[in-house]
């Protein structure tokens, strides 16, 4: 492998992972938008929309109320807490990251990790099996002249089949 290719891959992955790492350190953007993102609209129609996405008159009133609360010096967390006390957890647009609700966040990534480990094991088995087959065929290759014409025929067939597979794969890559 050329030295340039290695360098390009290294630079690419460094840029990529630094960006990912930065993402977890980054702070939130606009405060009112954050608040609107964290809360559901609680209108009489039970529209089921996040406040930032809702256009009903109740949502507009609440937006104005929250803007005033933020101006008065309350933080986003304090307003959210007030709303939870008033309406319960259902006012939050996403589960909290503690207690039982933590399972909502952990399980998808847990499942993905378990799936990844399982897939890795599965692939290990499949790749190992293939290597064993090749070794077996190589052993047979060495012993072929002593094994008579039938075995020699099978050996040639598998040799040709591998060659055909290789060529077809190259053709379709």
């Amino acid at each position, binding site marked *: *492998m050329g030295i*340039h*290719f290695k360098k*390009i*891959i290294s630079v*690419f992955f460094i*840029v990529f992972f630094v*960006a*990912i790492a*930065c*993402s977890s350190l*980054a*702070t939130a*953007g606009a405060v009112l938008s954050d608040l609107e*993102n*964290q809360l*559901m609209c609680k209108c009489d*129609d039970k*529209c089921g929309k996040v406040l*930032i*996405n*809702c*256009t009903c*008159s109740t949502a*507009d009133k609440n937006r104005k109320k929250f803007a005033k609360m933020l101006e008065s010096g309350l933080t986003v967390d304090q307003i959210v807490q007030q709303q939870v006390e008033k309406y*319960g*957890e*259902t*006012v939050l*647009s*996403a*589960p909290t990251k503690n207690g*039982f*609700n933590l399972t*909502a*966040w952990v399980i*998808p990534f847990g*499942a*993905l990790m378990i*799936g*990844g480990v399982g*897939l890795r094991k599965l*692939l290990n*088995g499949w*790749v190992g099996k*293939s290597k064993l*087959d090749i070794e077996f065929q190589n052993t047979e290759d060495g012993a072929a002249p002593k094994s008579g014409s*039938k075995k020699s*025929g*099978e050996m*040639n*067939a598998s040799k*040709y*089949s591998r060659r*055909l*597979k290789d060529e*077809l794969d*190259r053709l*379709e*890559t």
Partner: protein
Amino acid sequence: MNDVGEFTLMVALATSLYGIVVYVMAARGNRIDLYLSADKVPLITWACVMISSIALWKAFFTNDFSLQYVYAYSNIELDYFYKFSSFWGGQKGSLLFWTLILTSYMIVVHFQNRSKNLIVVPYAMAVMLVITCFFLLLLNFSTNPFERIPLPPEDGRGLNPLLQNYWMVIHPPTLYLGYVGFTVPFAFAVAALISKNLDDAWIRLTRKWTVVSWFFLCMGNLFGASWAYVELGWGGYWAWDPVENAAFMPLIVATAYLHSVMIQEKKDMMKVWNMSLILLTFVMTIFGTFITRSGLIQSVHTFDEATLGYYFLGLLFFIIAACIVLIVLRLPLLKSENELDSFLSREAGFLFNNLLLLGIAFATFWGTIFPIISEAVRGVKITVGPPFYNQVNVPIGLALLALIGIGPIIAWRRATWSNLKKNFLKPLMFASVGGAVLFPILPLSNRSEIYTYIAFILCIFVLSSMLIEFYKGTMARYTSSETVLGALGSLIWNNKRRYGGYTVHIGVVMIYAGIAASQSYGIHTEKRVKIGETIEIRDYILRYEKLAAIQATSVKTRIIAQLAVEKNGKRIWTARPEKEFYKGQNQPVSEVDVRSTLASDLYVILADFSEDESATIKVYHNPMVKWLWTGGWVIALGTMVCAWPDRLEQRRRLERLKRQQIVFSPAQE
């Protein structure tokens, strides 16, 4: 005509029941006479459902309010365009519409395959008829669209104003064409399991159905997003609503299937996996219907009279149980020689692609049902909204985007370092250069913006890898006697599946780029303005010119604000956002006005107004939203190329099989 519509629904039910019995008996007893006796069943069932549908449409067009359904979803003033779409505006009509599409698909399958595979096809038809029968049972005995009102009112209640949009005519049918389309591969998969014909015949018979259904589901999702964007007036297009999730999940599982099935076609591996994926796709389509019609989960899409939950839950359990039993019983026959030459291979790439796609589908499913789980475990109902899905699905989605670029350019079986270098060097170079150029331009102040930056780098990587593939293929064919365009055309024409697939990937990349940019760099402002006052956003100045009221119909009044939009001192557009007031409706409907370009959308909403003609105007500046819709059309183009009949491919496949038979046969030596 209403009586005829009701009667034909009964006839359709009786015919489909007859068809199920006769098809199964014909297949089990190898009775050609019975098979021939069922020959007209799909046609009769379809004709009956069609007559019933025409009867319902006629009732809408003639304002026949003696039908409870017409009364609930139409009125005299309703435009004919929306009278047509009111058909599927409520639960009863939408079930009839589903049945109409299902039976239409069924007759196409019947005429396509009736003389092709006499072992698998009867069972497949029986499975499709069982599903049809379920819907006909609901239509006849639970949600009859021809239910009468003893004293018919003079006028109807009218269609929900939010549904009075041209997307209402396009989005639900497209989505249904996708949902219902997966019944065909599902039916053939189940038929293959029952009849023990577990080679790849069922895959070949249904490949195009799968591709076309996937396409409709994809476009249905995009059209839904587009509708939400122009109609709901909040500047966004996707809210991770449970019903949106329900349409998204089968799409993702079907995408996984479309990729993994290539490994079965090529290497005869992963039969159990592919079978499970297609069955899961169908289960997910029924799950989506269950959510919409059960009222179990709160959603803006739920039907008013969502009472069919138990029926769909029953169907869901029946299908899942039947599929599991069938797969377990046929496991010995589904076993395949699973071998891989290397981790560094396209096969492994496809498997990781499957893992990520199913990861996204699972996270979405988990988020959708978590409120129910929370209520069951803690007794507290919580909400799982966009922040959850964005935090969970975005990282997985980015990894998937990287695989979209890696998959098509990594070699089958085993990629060597020289092969990797040859294929990856240029795309990585382009991505690195793109990343370096974008770094000083793009703001990176929060997590969303950093994710977007990563997404852009990956988009450049994928796009360059795809375009290089097109370039290499074209140059290999380019001769002095042929133009470059001619060479490109013949390259695609002779490898439709491959280059159609690449085109679809380009469309997907455009969608990724559009989502990334609009989610992170969109800004909005809101201002109360009097006539002559201005609002500024980015490089635009919006000058409020006037407010007008128009009595559009006896039930609809339109309030229209007019704003002159200037850029660099030049008037470039006139925005006319409006609010529509419907008689008998509590909330007015916002009709936004959008100036859309590839760079950005200027999205103007009339939020409020008062008698002194002052108005509250909301303006969104959403970058690159048009990339989403354009990406959709690129996907459409790619799918069309993929699904185009390809004699060359069939001939190549036959030749390859012949050559393999020659080489693999020891007798030839």
